[in-house]
């Protein structure tokens, strides 16, 4: 009898948790959407802020949208150049479960856990040392640092599943290690794609890394040394304005950013499903 009662109570608690969590999260989306949709317009996506934009006059945040996109593309490429070889190295060059591979994994766990603000501050120091002002380049470096461990871990998670039969089969055909890796990379391609998109989602939404490193501007950066506006900062700055019109635009910008990230994660999911077939 007591066991029956426990069962019923726990089931009730579980249902309550599911319902609460879903309600709260959907409510958040609803609130942001309700206030954002009002001020969301085509103009906001396509035009640059004009002089009176921050007082509630016309203009848009195309500068931040384009700035964010440029930065995330550059940062992702930069970080992929480091993280793909690293993940392959841990799995196929080092002894798979040897001490070196294990301590590398530990180190990437640590790097993964380092707060984005620390990457932002470190990126800023690095820029000062290199003599670079707050710019697209600076922001790109900081974001690349932030997403590098995310990518390594995500690629590692799929690379670890590659059976050693495969690598041995390739070796037994007389291939060199480099040629073996080419086969492995083909095998890992869906995993690499989803790791990249995961990193993109995280990198594009992070404000703390770009706070000191990217600067902010009303125009679209032309060279890597120009400051660049980013969406998370655009949201943050507009929200701190006392003018309600401008605040509402912060919600609209949040909606744009959320929509961009949702599209990205939909693509990830679709690709993951596609690759399983």
């Amino acid at each position: 009898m007591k066991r029956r009662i426990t069962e019923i109570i726990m089931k009730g608690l579980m249902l309550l948790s599911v319902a609460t969590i879903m309600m709260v999260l959907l409510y958040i989306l609803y609130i942001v959407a309700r206030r954002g949709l009002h001020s969301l317009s085509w103009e906001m996506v396509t035009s640059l802020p004009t002089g009176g934009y921050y007082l509630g006059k016309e203009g848009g945040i195309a500068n931040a949208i384009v700035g964010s996109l440029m930065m995330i593309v550059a940062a992702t490429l930069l970080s992929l150049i480091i993280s793909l070889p690293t993940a392959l190295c841990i799995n196929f060059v080092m002894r798979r479960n040897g001490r070196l591979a294990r301590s590398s994994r530990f180190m990437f766990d640590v790097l993964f856990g380092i707060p984005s603000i620390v990457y932002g501050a470190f990126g800023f120091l690095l820029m000062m040392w290199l003599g670079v002002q707050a710019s697209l380049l600076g922001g790109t470096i900081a974001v690349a640092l932030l997403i590098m461990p995310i990518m390594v871990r995500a690629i590692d998670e799929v690379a670890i599943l590659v059976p050693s039969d495969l690598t041995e089969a390739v070796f037994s055909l007389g291939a060199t290690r480099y040629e073996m890796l080419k086969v492995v990379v083909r095998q890992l391609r869906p995993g690499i794609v989803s790791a990249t998109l995961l990193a993109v989602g995280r990198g594009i939404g992070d404000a703390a890394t770009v706070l000191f490193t990217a600067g902010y501007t009303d125009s679209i950066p032309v060279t890597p040394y120009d400051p660049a506006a980013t969406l998370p900062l655009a949201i943050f700055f507009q929200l701190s304005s006392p003018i309600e019109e401008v605040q509402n635009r912060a919600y609209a910008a949040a909606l744009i950013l959320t929509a961009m990230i949702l599209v990205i994660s939909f693509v990830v999911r679709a690709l993951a499903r596609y690759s399983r077939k």
Partner: protein
Amino acid sequence: MKLSRRIKDLTATRLMMVATLMAFALMIIIGVVLAVKSEQILSGHSLWSLLGSSVWKPMKGEFGFLAFIAGTLAVTALAIVLALPPALLASIWLSEYAGERIRRLFAPVIDLLAGIPPVVYGVWGTLTLVPLISETIAPLFVDFSTGYSLLAGGVVLAIMVIPLMMGLFGELFASIPRDLREASLALGATRWETARRVVVRKALPGIVATVVLAISRAFGETIAVMMVCGNVADMPGSLFNPVYPLPALIANNYGEMMSMPDYESALMLAALILFVIIIAFNAISHAILHRLKQRIA
């Protein structure tokens, strides 16, 4: 073997080693750079007086980090305490009770929610949660609260890490073999008993790893917390008082304080403290995980 193949092979392997070493070096460089930058403040004050005091008056040269460290820990702890039970229960329900169709419906939703950027949660917090606390919840307990408080920070963080936890828990429970559950049910255990004694027990190392990840995430979260926690450098006294976590301290002041070397150095020390806590935390959790795995296997 043709020479060109050997050369290609050698260069590729070497380059990969270099990439890995660079990543290795990155961690050491970050630590060293932060330590060098904090040297200025450490040479003027003893470490004990910096970490043990909660007096923060940069203009008078007093830099006490205790309130910030306590604020960070309080917000993180509150977030995990609030997030873990419902996330775990909900994940157990999804994996052990709900049908395949419901699971397939929920999985993308959880993924989407995990992808929402922190600043959006911060926006929601300022818009809804802060007024709710100051107008409805706080008056029940204290005389006055602006709403920008430890509670607001903890709740926003909890809501942020719940989708992260549920996504990982879901994968974890799905990886546990069906046979184990059926064996338990066949012996007459109820579903809850099976979930608790078999599924959760078997998944324990993974659950610990997930919680570690969630803590790291909550611990370093800057923007969402900064928007709702009030940013006042007091020791966290009640849920309705404002707190000032370390990441927010850096974000609010860094860049503007370049003219004051002591202040800048103090902020670098703040970053160093975050860095050291994360390393220590990862080391401890790795040790725990190692022992757990040995005990279960």
